[in-house]
């Protein structure tokens, strides 16, 4: 894993010192809120409904046990003993007090972390496949490139005041677990005809009020050219993007309004201009970073203990069947620790749970942890013989929920329980759906199902790309929930289609039940996933289940 250089450390500490003084000046009245607000946002500090919120970047979702332990320490010392992992692989603290924030940032700096550029119209935390470096289907670990992009984009003087925020995601696998097609820039590692790895570059994807799937601006950019190519894209966007209208300021609108071909021509022209300035220093830095991401010393051992536990313990077997993924090394597995216990807040972990996960990583996981955009925690490198012990410890910590990829593994934004922008609650809807399907004992029978819930049109809960998407709105002073179906956040990305009129807060769980019952009735076999079934039969059977036989008329009226 990348460790901070002296330069990184000095930079982050300088920012902490600067912000500490700004906080002091705000408290003593020298700074007004109008003056202070942009400064606090540059350091990840928001003001939400009930309190301040500090958003801490977890670059490409990668942590070690020391960092996770420190996140636990911060949660306990200056917050309410827990943290919320987000769909952008960050962690948010919901209850910091303003005078304590400098101390929190200092504690982060002590372990090489910060909250810089987690807000504002800048390049945000670069996200990556949470199975990076471990997945069996991977071409190469994409994190060195993600780290290079992080270093380039952090405090980049040209890109501190973009027309709007800018999000980059990168994957090294053909199976896209990083939702690259819903990012401002999506990078998908591919091989060219000579077999060399490079990147397919997507541009102009995004969710929010105008959801769009990213478009291929270049089918192959060699690794050595990637940084200048990305800089050319952001540079063109910086001059062309609209600053007159916040809702038309994202690059997806810039690309749509100007056309992909025009946008590409401008990028190519800018690229030709700046490419000579990249004299190879970035590639030297990348080579250094790649060394820091060298694979751990995998061991070769028997997996008998794993096989025996599978045989003997049905609870272990169920967990192993849902929460493990194929590792590229024989005898190893990727463990997804579900932060989706039925009836609990998706993505929340207590300080104690964070310490348990850190300890497991230290003892059994080559000291690596990942945060997924699906708000779970990953132990990417676990030898199968250690799985029974890990499972037992997770059980004790309330972390052994066997539901990864199932209907209760729900993405939910904080919604109106915390967020100042929200128009409805998300968390209780997620809690109730998970609890209901657990009671019905149906979730394993339903199989792969991705429900994603956003509490406003900004779509932090990725509802557009949920197999079932739920969007909470304020309709005449009452919470109302719109449903979309058929969304997909993977390499076959698609935006979900709206079923029709929305549902009241107490109608949304029954509506989801109707959709699931329709799927179970319509599917050809237990192997046909919800998404495949939906693609085969279309939206009509679901509309009829939700609204009755006159569904089409009502949908038009909506």
């Amino acid at each position, binding site marked *: 894993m990348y460790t901070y250089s002296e330069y990184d450390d000095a930079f982050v500490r300088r920012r902490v010192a600067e912000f500490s003084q700004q906080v002091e000046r705000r408290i003593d009245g020298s700074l007004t*809120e109008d003056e202070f607000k942009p400064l606090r946002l540059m350091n990840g500090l928001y003001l939400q409904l009930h309190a301040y919120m500090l958003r801490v970047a977890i670059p490409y979702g990668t942590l070690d046990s020391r960092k996770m332990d420190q996140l636990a320490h911060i949660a306990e010392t200056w917050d309410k003993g827990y943290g919320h992992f987000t769909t952008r692989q960050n962690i948010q603290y919901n209850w910091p*007090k*303003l005078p304590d924030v400098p101390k929190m940032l200092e504690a982060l700096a002590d372990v090489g972390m910060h909250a810089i550029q987690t807000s504002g119209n800048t390049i945000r935390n670069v996200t990556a496949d949470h199975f990076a470096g471990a997945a069996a289907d991977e071409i190469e670990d994409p994190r060195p490139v993600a780290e290079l992009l992080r270093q380039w984009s952090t405090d980049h003087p040209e890109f501190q005041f973009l027309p709007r925020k800018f999000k980059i995601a990168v994957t090294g696998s053909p199976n896209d677990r990083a939702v690259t097609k819903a990012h401002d820039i999506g990078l998908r590692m591919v091989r060219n005809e000579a077999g060399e790895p490079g990147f397919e570059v997507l541009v102009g994807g995004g969710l929010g009020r105008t959801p769009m799937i990213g478009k291929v601006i270049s089918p192959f950019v060699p690794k050595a050219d990637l940084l200048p190519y990305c800089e050319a894209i952001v540079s063109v966007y910086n001059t062309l993007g609209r600053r007159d209208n916040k809702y038309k300021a994202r690059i997806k609108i810039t690309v749509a309004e100007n056309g992909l071909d025009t946008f590409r021509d401008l990028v190519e022209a800018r690229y030709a201009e700046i490419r000579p300035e990249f004299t190879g220093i970035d590639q030297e830095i990348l080579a250094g970073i790649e060394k820091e991401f060298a694979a751990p010393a995998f061991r070769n051992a028997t997996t008998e203990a794993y096989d025996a536990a599978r045989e003997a313990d049905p609870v272990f077997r169920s967990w192993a069947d849902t929460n493990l993924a194929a590792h590229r090394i024989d005898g190893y597995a990727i463990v997804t620790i579900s932060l989706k216990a039925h009836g609990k807040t998706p993505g929340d972990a207590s300080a104690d749970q964070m310490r348990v996960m850190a300890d497991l990583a230290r003892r059994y996981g080559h000291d690596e942890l990942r945060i997924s955009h699906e708000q779970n925690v990953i132990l990417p490198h676990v030898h199968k013989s250690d799985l029974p012990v890990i499972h037992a410890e997770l059980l004790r910590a309330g972390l052994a929920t066997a539901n990864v990829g199932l209907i209760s593994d729900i993405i939910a934004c904080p919604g*109106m329980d915390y967020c100042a922008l929200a128009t409805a609650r998300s968390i209780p809807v997620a809690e109730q759906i998970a609890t209901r399907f657990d009671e019905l004992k149906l979730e394993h029978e339903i199989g792969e199902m991705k429900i994603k819930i956003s509490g406003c049109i900004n779509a932090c809960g990725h509802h557009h790309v949920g197999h079932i998407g739920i969007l909470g709105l304020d309709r005449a002073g009452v919470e109302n929930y719109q449903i979309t179906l058929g969304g997909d956040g993977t390499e076959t990305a698609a935006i979900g289609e709206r079923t029709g009129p929305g549902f009241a807060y107490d109608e949304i769980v029954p509506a989801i039940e109707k959709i699931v019952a329709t799927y179970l009735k319509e599917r050809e076999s237990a192997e046909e996933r919800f998404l495949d079934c939906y693609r085969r039969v279309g939206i009509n059977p679901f509309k009829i289940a939700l609204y009755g036989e006159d569904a089409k008329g009502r949908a038009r009226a909506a």
Partner: protein
Amino acid sequence: MARAFTPKVVTANDLLEGDVIYLTETDQWSRHHHEAELIEDEAHAEIRLLFASGQQNKVVGVYLADARPGPDGPEPVHFREAFRAKGPSNYVHGKQESRA
């Protein structure tokens, strides 16, 4: 004829803690919605808002929120204000802690 004025309370967040607060009749800031001054006159609402906005070193994000009279004092009208007055629904945190 002027449209009917919906009663208001002046609300904000506390500068240091971020907690939701309400302006009382005696120019104090209360953590409790029912202790807020219920303002039934538009011109008076503007004056109270100006007064509150002048307290930059105590409060953040001052605005007027719709409210209605209740048996124990003003009550929120919109559900957003009800959540602000109560705290989050997933934990007994915020204002609910002191009540528990």
